């Protein structure tokens, strides 16, 4: 076991607010094909396939099985699925490669959050005894975290507007983003507060989309990729499930995952953070110790495109793509799921 694993290819859909044309399989087919083609590894030689999705998004049990139609599962492939963001599928694939059992893996995630009401669907991941019966939506729970953060006094409404403005402006350069505009914090602050203390620009846009990544081990990665994005550290940690037990103004799980992934060892050129709400950025920056020199969410981030269940994988892909083409040498990707940043994954990648 060499312990060397790299992201060698990445593809994502041109995300849209609502794809009224394609079903999930039709959404996945092009990104899986594109990622495999870019990897240069023949499809039938890829050792492991892992996907991430959420059955509740389409309202049908085992709907992820249909996604396999896009992969080509015959002769029978070695396959796994997580009912989670595909960044966690990538973690499983990374472990599979580290064991030495396989030397490559395809990871994909998909989600059409426009089919139902994603804010209500995500309520079903909360405690079913005393939280879900009150139906707090995804944005209700996020707004509670933002409220606690602002009340603590270290972050202001203007800070949130600065985050949102920077992401929306950065997305002008991202053809896959759903929202993009040249805007500054003053303009955003003049807009109405819709979910106190949050404004619409502080909240992710409902998005349909998919993404795929190919991982490869040591020599294979060097063979197929001129500048592999080597995974130097990867870890994920979770908070206690009860919202009221946590200090919502910090993210202990992100800090721990970041420390274990080596976030602070050596400089970072860029970080892609799974910030579905603008107030999550200052919490994550603090937890990861990201200084002003780190370019955060250069793609615009999830505030400008949030195809749930692939959003975290896309953070990894966006950093990997920047390493592949030489824009950066070392970067950090963060993925999150659950209410108010409940579970957090940190993946540090670098050129060697």
């Amino acid at each position, binding site marked *: 076991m060499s312990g060397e694993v790299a992201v060698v290819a990445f593809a994502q859909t041109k995300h849209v607010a609502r794809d009224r044309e394609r079903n999930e399989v039709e959404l996945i087919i092009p990104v899986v094909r594109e990622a495999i083609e870019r990897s240069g590894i023949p499809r039938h030689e890829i050792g492991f396939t892992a996907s991430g999705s959420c059955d509740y998004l389409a*309202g049908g049990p085992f709907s992820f099985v249909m996604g396999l139609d896009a992969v080509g599962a015959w002769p029978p492939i070695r396959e796994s699925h997580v009912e989670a963001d595909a960044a966690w599928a990538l973690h499983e694939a990374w472990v599979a490669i580290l064991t030495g059992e396989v030397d490559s893996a395809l990871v994909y995630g998909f989600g059409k959050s426009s089919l*139902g009401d994603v804010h209500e669907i995500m309520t079903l991941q909360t405690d079913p005894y005393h939280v879900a019966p009150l139906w707090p939506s995804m944005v209700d729970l996020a707004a509670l975290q933002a409220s606690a953060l602002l009340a603590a006094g270290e972050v202001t409404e203007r800070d949130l507007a600065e985050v949102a403005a920077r992401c929306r402006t950065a997305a002008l350069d991202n053809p896959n983003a759903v929202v993009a505009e040249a805007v500054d914090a003053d303009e955003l602050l003049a807009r109405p507060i819709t979910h106190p203390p949050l404004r619409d620009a502080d909240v992710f846009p409902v998005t349909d989309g998919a993404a795929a990544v190919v991982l490869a081990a040591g020599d294979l990665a060097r063979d197929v990729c001129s500048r592999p994005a080597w995974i130097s550290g990867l870890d994920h940690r979770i908070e206690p499930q009860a919202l009221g037990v946590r200090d919502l103004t910090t993210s202990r799980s992100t800090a721990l995952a970041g420390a274990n992934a080596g976030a602070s060892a050596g400089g970072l050129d860029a970080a892609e953070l799974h910030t579905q709400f603008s107030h999550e950025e200052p919490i994550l920056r603090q937890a990861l110790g990201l200084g002003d020199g780190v370019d955060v969410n250069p793609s615009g981030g999830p505030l400008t495109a949030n195809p749930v269940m692939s959003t975290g994988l896309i953070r990894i892909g966006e950093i990997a793509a920047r390493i592949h083409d030489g824009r950066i040498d070392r970067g950090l990707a963060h993925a999150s799921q659950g209410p108010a940043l409940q579970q957090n994954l940190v993946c540090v990648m670098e050129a060697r």
Partner: protein
Amino acid sequence: MDADTLVERHVLEYPGGYTRSLGPAESRFLTGLRDGRIVGVRLGDGRVMVPPAEYDPETARPVDEYVEVGPAGVVTAWTWVSEPRPGKHPFERPFAFALVRPDGADTAMLHVLDADGPASLRVGMRVAPRWRAERRGHVTDIEAWVPLAEGEPVPAPPAPAPPAGADPDEAAEEPGPVTRMVSPVRLEYEINAGIAPTRYLHALAERRIVGQKAAGSDHVYVPPRGSDPTTGAPTEVEVEVGQDGTVTTFCVVNIPGLSDLAPPVPYVCAQILLDGADTPWFGLVQGLDADDVRMGLRVRAVWDDDPAPDARSIKWFEPNGEPDAPYESYKDYA
């Protein structure tokens, strides 16, 4: 193609809801709410957590020293909901969600806050529960938390009304602990069929059955979903298949009422390999006794009088009078 594909409304609902067993900690908490008390649990480090759990969230050690907290408390976070979600949120009028830390507790619980508007809310404000008169051991036994002015006494929970028809002189029987709760779930969707299924469904309205295959492949998939599942290649070649086929396997259903569309029992569900297709098709077989249905039986689609872009346009299959197909002809599909 840029046309919208067919859309079907879909509701995910479990009539009557899920029935959940509570376990010791949830049972204490919800029994407490029914009795007008808020119950937490003392953790290993002495802090009190509410709602209680069976374990310490820091150490995972079992905890079971239950303590009453509140009833008044402090708001640690809030957000105003100006557009409540009908059928989901507890109020139809605007309200707040809040994290409330009851007096004597060290953690907060999520609940709703009934107030005049967002301007009156702040972190640190004092609140008290407004209890329902009729409580059943559910988180909504607290109807809402309400602002509590300085010096204002905390309202006591109203005594539960005696059940209708009860003899007021007879002592009410002490109710036992709450051990279960029911969770209704209802989600609504608009599902897009996708490009390949839409073409297939439109063909059904013309009494045609259309499959698809990938370029360079001989395998015809019907109904098509857009990809060749063995290779993942898009199936861009459309192929009309026959309306006659062979029963590859079947089952006799003797349980009535499985579906609104089901015929009287006994009836037969079968896998039918349509001529020219490479995936068997699921359908009903009618027109002969269930006992006479067999593998290899040759059948033909029977259409609805008014076919539509809907899988139900083929009502069932009936024997087409041809001799049975030899096993060799369908063994790879059985």
